[in-house]
């Protein structure tokens, strides 16, 4: 029977040769790490930045559970190398919530509309919805359905997700004039 400690000690470092060093801002915090070139952004987020709110659901970039914002745009973090995000800024589901803990309007609408059941697709779905509304603040149902086509949900049949995006769009529209009235 191998002794685990000895076995681990045989390999103090997995690789001795130069590995890329990357600098990424994740949810407002700068991270610098030496990483393997092959490290996927989603594994970087989960294992190095400890942002385990972002999850992996497939290995073909179909499901979208891993969706995050990279430099303000939705991307599937399982199909981006961490090294490609070097110098970039990532927003995960964990970075959407305001500092005071209040939910992002999309998160709030997902809650009110029961747009999640098991919750596994939710991080990616919420980020995809945030991206959708950033590009199209007043989408039709068909535009919402097309805009979320890269994110699979097995629980909800999408109905309440679509409704939540509509509710979030309306909430943002209603809130916008009110915000303008607040003195700078």
């Amino acid at each position, binding site marked *: *029977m*191998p002794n*685990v400690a000895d*076995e*681990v000690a045989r*390999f103090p470092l*997995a*690789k001795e040769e130069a590995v890329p060093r990357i600098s990424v801002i994740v949810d407002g915090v700068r991270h610098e790490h030496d990483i*393997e070139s*092959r490290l996927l952004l989603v*594994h970087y987020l989960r*294992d190095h930045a400890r*942002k*385990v*709110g*972002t*999850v*992996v*659901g*497939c*290995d*073909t970039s*179909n*499901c979208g559970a891993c969706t995050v914002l990279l430099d303000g745009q939705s991307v599937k973090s399982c199909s981006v190398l961490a090294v490609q995000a070097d110098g970039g800024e990532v927003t*995960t*589901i*964990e970075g*959407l919530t305001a500092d005071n803990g209040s*939910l992002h309007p999309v*998160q709030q609408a*997902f*809650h009110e509309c*029961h747009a*999640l*059941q*098991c*919750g*596994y*697709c*939710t*991080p990616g779905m*919420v980020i995809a919805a945030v991206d959708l509304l950033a590009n199209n603040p007043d989408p039709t*149902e068909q535009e*919402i*359905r*097309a805009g*979320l*086509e890269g*994110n*699979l*949900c*097995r*629980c*909800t*049949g*999408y*109905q*309440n*997700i*679509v409704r939540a995006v509509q509710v979030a769009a309306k909430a943002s529209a209603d809130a916008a004039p009110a915000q303008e009235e607040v003195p700078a």
Partner: protein
Amino acid sequence: MSTVAEGRVAEVGQARPRREDAHLLTGRTQWTDNITLPGMLHLAILRSPVAHATITKVDVSGARERPGVVAAFSGGELAAEWGSLPMAWTVSEDQKTPPHFPLAADKVRFVGDGLAVVAATSREAAVDALEAIDFDLDQLPAVVDMEAAMAEGSALVHDDIPANRCFTWQESHGDYAAAHERADVVLKRRFINQRLIPSAIEPRSVVVEPTPATNEYTMWSSTQVPHFVQIFISLTAGVPQSSLRVIAPDVGGGFGSKLDVYAEEAIGVVLAKKLGVPVKWTETRSENCQVTIHGRDLIQDVEITAMRDGTVLGLKVDLITNMGAYLQLLTPCIPLLGRYMYPGIYKFEAHDLSCTGVFTNKTPTDAYRGAGRPEATYVIERIMDELANELGMEPLDLRRKNWIERDEFPYTTVAGLEYDSGDYEKATARATELLGYDDLRREQQARRDRNDPVQIGIGVSTYTEMCGLAPSRWLGREGYIAGGWEAATVRVLPLGKVEVVTGTSPHGQGHETTFAQVAADALGVPYDDVVVVHGDTRTAPLGLDTYGSRSLVVGGMAIVKACEKIVEKAQALAAHQLEVDVRDVEFAAGRFSVLGSAEQGKSIQELAFASFVAHDLPAGADPILTADAVMDPDTFSVPHGTHLAHVEVDTETGKVDLKQYVAVDDIGKVVNPLVVDGQIHGGVAQGVSQALFEEAVYDDDGNLTSGTFVDYLLPTSADLPSFTTDRTETPSTTNPLGVKGVGETGTIASTPAIVNAVVDALRPLGVNDVPMPCSPMHVWQAIRAAKGEPR
């Protein structure tokens, strides 16, 4: 301490957004794969690339030399460490249950069967090392087709199981031969329920942490059934049940696929035991497609007999069902769970049913949302449409002629199951109104008249089902080795909060919210004062978990029962402290008051404190307001409903477009309409998806060709419409809340509704069936075949 206001509004019936959402929406989740423990090793499993072969060599020494690898074992090297994985249901005396080890040692029997395991310091190192394992497989002919598998001369999946036959059972109700004799019309069809991949979006994951000081093991597993896992892995891996704690943390969907006890759970415990450090295994999606159980996969030959006026006389079904390569936890019993459902909501006099299970070199099948009931419902609802067509009747009229009328409940069907309640007339009337049924029929006719390339179809499914698994006595009679009860513990804590411990184990259903609503009403306390605890064999030691739409109708009733015990105990304490006879105390809205003197009283939460300090208890009373209860149901829950689908079929391309879907369900009383609608939406989507999109496809060599989400097609938001849902409410008479199960109704109802709609659209072209999924190619081929052109 909270106080309860007079005129309390009932919690049951409130559309409360879920409390589970807070952490799921913000990424503060506890998926098993999120767990990282000091010294934890990552496991990767070498899987057979071929469907059927004799293992001639598995040499892991190369893997052991790889950087970061701590250990590697072949199946043969671990053979002494474990027993066979569990199979919990023997459906017939002749059933053959072959051994099924966590890793194969002699033969591999499906693509994905485990050959060896590597433990390494990183996920990358473990996966890399798999490529350094030297193995030789002596390939054998793959058994792929169920009917060929039973034919003489077929290769054998298990050498000692002749004709690959796992079991055969049959039953007969009434005199089918006589019904056949008398019938004006005898209609035969073959209906195939294709193989499906459940595809919970969270892949499975297992973490096992050993505690060497006490010889204990803690397992986190993405499972629906932590209690099953504790018992069965204890047996398989040789760890005392009391030394194995199983936790189901956040679980990302199951749909039956996590209602199982898996090889990787046993491998995790055995490696944690051997290596003395925590280990983690997380499935890739490709592995999930290959090795997590599949659903459905059966061929049903159906014969219905009827009179010319539409009176159905009898139904005969011969089905063969694909076990795959091994029997997982419940593999053989799935058709058994559907066997009461063949008569659907109809009255007729005779029913014959036979069922044969067949081994093939494919992934094992097991429970997938509905488990047996969708397959049976598909048969009866499809054949009713075929019969209506044959008789020239409107499909709804044929159903009306044969269904159980509202004043005939309780009604025992020809299959022997009693339905306690129902109102098919009302649900159907509401559904047709919501769809605009008559107008749509007129538009359909107009399109037919002008030979429009895009035809309209209307599909009907007046389904019922039985759920709320299950009365233990029934389970025992049917060959299941466990019971079907559920347990609850309710504690009113001294400071007024209420802890509800349930033995069910949610994975998206929202028990923390809905069970709190149930308990809040039963105790008359505010919803916010109730917390629900679940999913850990240490904190919820008694339970039989979540599947079969059982959580509310069995688990919820255990909670109600425990709350009643608490009220009874508190009432005695209230009477004692108020110095009146217990019969002079009434309980309402969380408060015990003296009859005729309402201002004199105490809240249940005040009494909890009094009971805790125990300074002044009635003679013989124990301190603390806590109660355990176990609910073993007397019978099943029988929801029903009418679902209508409106499709457009492009007869040039074969593309089916679901335009409208109306679901009117009768699930009795509703605890939380928001959650119920969510279950219906998701259930319908899954059933629609079977009808239109999904199919696990194998090639002739037994390779899964739909092995990723690129080829195994799940619908996106862009592929489904918004569904129209409504409810009728005929309270169940079998439980105090009048509730019925809802988790599987949508899936059971929708598949035949969709296929009936597709076939309805194509009737003028002479099409009487389209095999599922009704993909463009299948539709196109059906049209060609009807025209007599080659497929």
